[in-house]
């Protein structure tokens, strides 16, 4: 019976340090080799029988070996899983395969609405441009929060900015993808991420200009023109990929509303409006809709404000 099974009697072994991990590994490897030589089914059944047959010491040895065995296997599995997780970065590699000229072209294209909506428009499934635009938006938002002295109570400035921008990009993309699935639109998740990401280019431009030059009317003009153009582009691309009037209406209405409202939110929530109070305090010298910085430590915004005022007076 002994020759046919893969049982190793611990009592007969010279090295009895069954607790050593490396020894377990070696024994495990040797066991595997022996199993490959003989039938595998026999080994499993043979182990338990022989364990009982060999008495208490043998049984404990077998148990110890099996436990250490399992630990070895679990450890190996975890290590290989961790390695494959690292290798997962390579899954994202094709989405970053772009040239600078392509990125520049796509940035400019994101502001130009397409005319052909009867033919499905091509969307590049690329993640470099959108990712960089989200980070740029975070930087611009930080700048706006700093100059307007926004006070964040539960959390940090940086955390809020990152959370807002990434939350919008990922959350609204997922929601629109879900809606597109319901409305039978032909668009993949990566394409949706890419489309929405490039749509943030309009937001970046608008916020960059209006966080520095504080005129309400200027913001509204930018909101309508720049925001509107990028929304029109996204809407046109989506329309070209959807069939049916109701579905088109649902998809495009939702996207347009969310996109424009986000720009509105970014301008007003992160940019303290100090209007009525200071008007009454400072008297009628202040023109209406004039943003006045209160307690702003940075002199730059005051400088820019006076410049803008001087420009407005001369125009």
């Amino acid at each position: 019976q002994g020759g046919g099974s893969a049982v190793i009697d611990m009592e007969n072994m010279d090295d009895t340090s069954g607790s050593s991990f490396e020894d377990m590994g070696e024994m495990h490897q040797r066991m595997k080799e022996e199993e490959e030589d003989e039938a595998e089914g026999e080994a499993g059944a043979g182990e338990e029988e022989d364990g009982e047959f060999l008495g208490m010491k043998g049984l404990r040895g077998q148990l110890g070996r099996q436990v250490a065995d399992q630990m070895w296997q679990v450890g190996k599995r975890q290590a290989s899983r961790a390695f494959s997780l690292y290798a997962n970065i390579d899954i994202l590699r094709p989405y970053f395969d772009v040239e600078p000229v392509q990125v520049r072209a796509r940035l400019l294209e994101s502001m130009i609405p397409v005319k052909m909506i009867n033919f499905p428009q091509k969307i590049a499934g690329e993640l470099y441009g959108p990712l960089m635009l989200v980070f740029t938006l975070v930087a611009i938002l930080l700048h706006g929060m700093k100059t307007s002295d926004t006070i964040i109570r539960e959390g940090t400035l940086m955390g809020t900015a990152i959370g807002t921008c990434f939350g919008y990009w990922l959350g609204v993309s997922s929601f629109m993808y879900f809606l597109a699935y319901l409305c039978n639109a032909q668009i993949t998740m990566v394409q949706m991420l890419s489309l929405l990401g490039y749509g943030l280019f309009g937001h970046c431009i608008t916020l960059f200009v209006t966080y520095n030059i504080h005129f309400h009317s200027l913001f509204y003009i930018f909101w309508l023109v720049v925001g509107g153009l990028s929304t029109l582009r996204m809407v046109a691309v989506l329309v070209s990929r959807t069939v049916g009037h109701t579905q088109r209406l649902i998809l495009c209405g939702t996207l347009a509303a969310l996109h424009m409202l986000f720009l509105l939110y970014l301008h007003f929530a992160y940019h303290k409006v100090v209007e009525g109070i200071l008007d009454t305090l400072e008297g009628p010298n202040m023109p209406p809709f004039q943003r006045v910085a209160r307690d702003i430590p940075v002199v730059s915004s005051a400088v820019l404000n006076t410049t803008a005022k001087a420009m407005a007076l001369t125009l």
Partner: protein
Amino acid sequence: FPGLADVSVSQDIPVEGEITVPVGSNSPDDDYSTLDEPVKDTIMRDLKAVGKKFVHVMYPRKSSTLLRDWDLWGPLVLCVSLALMLQGGSADSKDDGGPQFAEVFVIIWFGAVVITLNSKLLGGTISFFQSLCVLGYCVMPLTVAMLVCRLVLLAGAGTVSFIIRLIVVGAMFAWSTLASTAFLADSQPPNRKALVVYPIFLFYFVISWMILTFTPQ
């Protein structure tokens, strides 16, 4: 059990396997001797390595020393000193308007990790920690700028001081970006350098902005 008698470790089965040697030590003798040396020697050796890297950042040349022997001591020291100097910059003492220590720390390290991942995804040949090392060491000009800003702010907080601070921070920002680009852009395919430089530019821009908008209590 006659069949079991020949299963034993010592004679029949040769011991085989792999002995993995830790990468750092060249020979057992080396390891032995650096373990016995006085602590001062170890510290001085590490300090010299860190100091050499600082010099490389000051005069960015295309040398591979920074890349080959990476270490994260310098970035840690710079990050901690920058975060400490940026403390207490709130306009209102009740609420925290200025960046917290943890915020600056997280910005620097999270930003460095993102840039590294980005450069790897774009086909870079540099390793993860080498890139972290370079980006961390290139924060040094901005730390110097922070020091200068604090000194200038001791004198006053008017328009002149702002212009001085703007010039200093702007120059140091350009220096940081150029220094890190000199080391990192070489590991990219030639036509994609701009794609790697832009996140580095953004990263140092955010740090410079935090330095510039800092005003002490």
